[in-house]
């Protein structure tokens, strides 16, 4: 190492170069205010010309200490805070806590509530993937897709508003069921959304998937081998695109997912295109689940089992994960039998998926870094918590 090299203060997270590129590399700060870091993520990129030599993500700009807050309130009070983690799959987040409380206290869930939960969770998965699709197109320079994604996302958001009064932070699931019954025309509205979604998926394919520039820019970019994906704890579409067959809904089933027939789409190469395609096929599978759920939906019945005055978890530790839109979202609660938990930890899929970025972005071009980051589909509040 030359005297000059040793006198340079490197950005945190970087070691002095050993790859023979000393003096050629430079460091570029992307974010926290940057159009394609999806919120307030900061990346420090080591570059040689346009080629990425290393990336260090710096999350934490929207850290709110939500898990710590959970130690000062009852589990029921904590429930709505999880909507602020991954705000695009807020229902999945709260479902994991509801499942824990139901198992710990032996609460039954009425069948109607189970179906409402599955229908809304799958709708939210579709909505989240639609939004991701729009943003992915925009990150690759096709700004128009953003508006198409939002158009279809909006239909689902409107249904959420009719069901529970909120559009984003829904706070709708409760231990033992859901907060209130769905409106009378709920199923009809779901049918309309399914119809629209089928049309939209076809349109997405024609607009973006089959576009030659998209094909050129995503094939072979950001290849994530299955072993790496496993060792980093990746989940969701990122894991399945690498060919690892793991879907919490299928392999660690919860709620009533075992009643529905659906496939788990898998990729082969683990590149950006596979991650793209897996998400597109997941939307089609969600439509399939929704069709069955709508057909089996109980016409009447209670939507919540008897409410308890307090939800005190018995002493012990409890864990449950669910398949949220971005991957496996888990909640871990340690309880000493009192009203407030001793410790709450949320396992967010985004954090594990982001941690693989440096590994797969090396050697790619700067524009590919944006593609890879977008294909990981992160939501920053989910990472920072």
């Amino acid at each position, binding site marked *: 190492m030359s005297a000059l090299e040793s006198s340079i203060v490197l950005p945190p997270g970087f070691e002095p170069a050993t790859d023979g590129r000393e003096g050629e590399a*430079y460091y*570029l700060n992307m974010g926290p205010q*940057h*159009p*394609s870091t999806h919120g307030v993520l900061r990346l420090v990129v080591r570059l040689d010309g*346009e080629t990425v030599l290393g990336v260090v993500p710096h999350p934490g700009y929207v850290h709110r200490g939500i898990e710590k807050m959970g130690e000062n309130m009852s589990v029921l009070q904590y429930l709505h805070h999880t909507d602020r983690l991954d705000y695009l799959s807020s229902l999945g987040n709260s479902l994991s806590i509801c499942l824990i409380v139901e198992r710990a206290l032996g609460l039954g869930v009425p069948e109607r509530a189970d179906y409402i939960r599955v229908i809304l969770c799958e709708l939210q998965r579709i909505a989240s993937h639609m939004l991701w699709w729009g943003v992915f*197109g*925009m*990150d*690759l*320079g*096709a*700004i*128009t897709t*953003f*508006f*198409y994604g939002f*158009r279809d996302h909006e239909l689902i958001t409107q249904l959420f508003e009719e069901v529970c009064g909120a559009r984003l932070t829904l706070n709708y699931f409760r231990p033992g069921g859901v907060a209130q019954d769905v409106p009378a025309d709920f199923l009809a509205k779901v049918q309309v959304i399914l119809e629209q979604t089928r049309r939209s998926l076809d349109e997405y394919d024609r607009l*973006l998937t089959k*576009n030659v*520039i*998209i094909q*050129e*820019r995503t094939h072979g970019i950001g290849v994530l081998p299955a072993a790496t994906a496993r060792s980093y704890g990746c989940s969701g579409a990122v894991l399945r695109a690498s060919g690892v067959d793991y879907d919490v809904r299928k392999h660690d089933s919860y709620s009533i997912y075992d009643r529905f027939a659906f496939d788990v789409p898998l990729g082969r190469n683990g590149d950006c295109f596979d991650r793209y395609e897996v998400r597109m096929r997941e939307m089609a599978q969600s439509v399939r689940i929704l069709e069955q759920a709508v057909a089996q939906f109980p016409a009447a019945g209670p939507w919540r089992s008897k409410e308890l005055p307090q939800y005190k978890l018995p002493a012990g530790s409890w864990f449950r994960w669910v398949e949220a839109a971005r991957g496996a979202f888990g909640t871990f609660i340690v309880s000493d039998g009192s009203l407030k938990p001793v410790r709450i930890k949320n396992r967010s899929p985004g954090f594990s998926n982001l941690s693989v970025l440096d590994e797969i972005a090396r050697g790619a*071009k*700067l*524009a*590919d*870094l*944006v593609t890879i980051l977008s294909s990981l589909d992160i939501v920053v509040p989910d990472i920072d918590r």
Partner: protein
Amino acid sequence: MIASLHSLTAAELAARYPATHPVGDWVRAHLAPAGAFTVNALIALALTTVFVSLTALFLVWMERKVCARFQLRLGPNRVGPFGLLQTLADGLKLFLKESFMPREADFFVYHLAPLIPITSSFMVFCVLPFDHNIQIADPQGGLVYLAAFLGMGVFGVLLAGWASNNKYSLLGALRSGAQMIAYEISYVLCLLLIVLASGSASTRDIVLAQQGTVLDWWLFKLPGCGALGFIIFIISSTAELHRAPFDIAEAESELTGGFHTEYSGMGFSMFFLSEYANLFVASGLGATLFLGGFLAPQFGFGPLDRALELVPGCVWFMLKVYGLVYLYMWLRWTFPRLRVDQLMSLEWKFLLPVALGNLAVAAVLVALGWLLP
């Protein structure tokens, strides 16, 4: 040379399409030659300034309206009728903004850079034939002049990126420099194709060489070569204009603003203005070279042809230009962006060989006299 290519002789052409405008004639009749030249030049300068500014304002509005329609939105609709005055309001806002210069930036170069692209746009406007007698200058080497000034625009981008003292700007400028130099080659090869076919580099002569029916436009003439040349022209001019799918110089998803990241106020609006002025120039050039410029479309059907002839040439020219402008906008709001290395291989490995081969085939066709489809 020209007269041999179509039915009218040079004398007939001159009589049918007089080269001088009545206003210029009037000035020349009333003043000494030196004075008349000065007055005419000043009139032309004033007209160009007003026209370029208004066109750029209108094109910004049009782009926003067109992209809004593509994106399920309404676009600007509050300021003035149909939101037409929105860009004027935005321009006023930019004018009143503080002109911010980053610390350590090169003062002289930083302030010089935005002026270069807009200057080159103005210079190029001078040789566009809006009508047979509405053209500021018609030099014999019109296309050479045009290629020279179009190529000047890259200096503004390069200098802006270098002087801003910002890594994003520098990356944008480097990309843009590589891109413009590469695509200029196939761009100029398309110009050469037309020079070869029409036997002249004067823009007016090129238009007049397309006399006849629609099939006499260079787009359709020269079996296959004209159409291929047009496609290459559209691709390489999109790259020259930094428009999607070739907007890597200001790719906002990775480089935020690219070369103009550090520009605000008037510096930014100069870049913006020249971008849209250049859009008009590229479309005008496409219309002139391939679509018969100011000539009315003729279909070989007497009454219809005569009716179309009644519409003034400048109206036809503008219609063709705005048709091409719409094409560029359509491309921009439909396609994703190419990556920088893909952009380079598209030019060097595909467009350049194709354009060269096209030129060679066209040369043989011209030598054999096989011009008609």
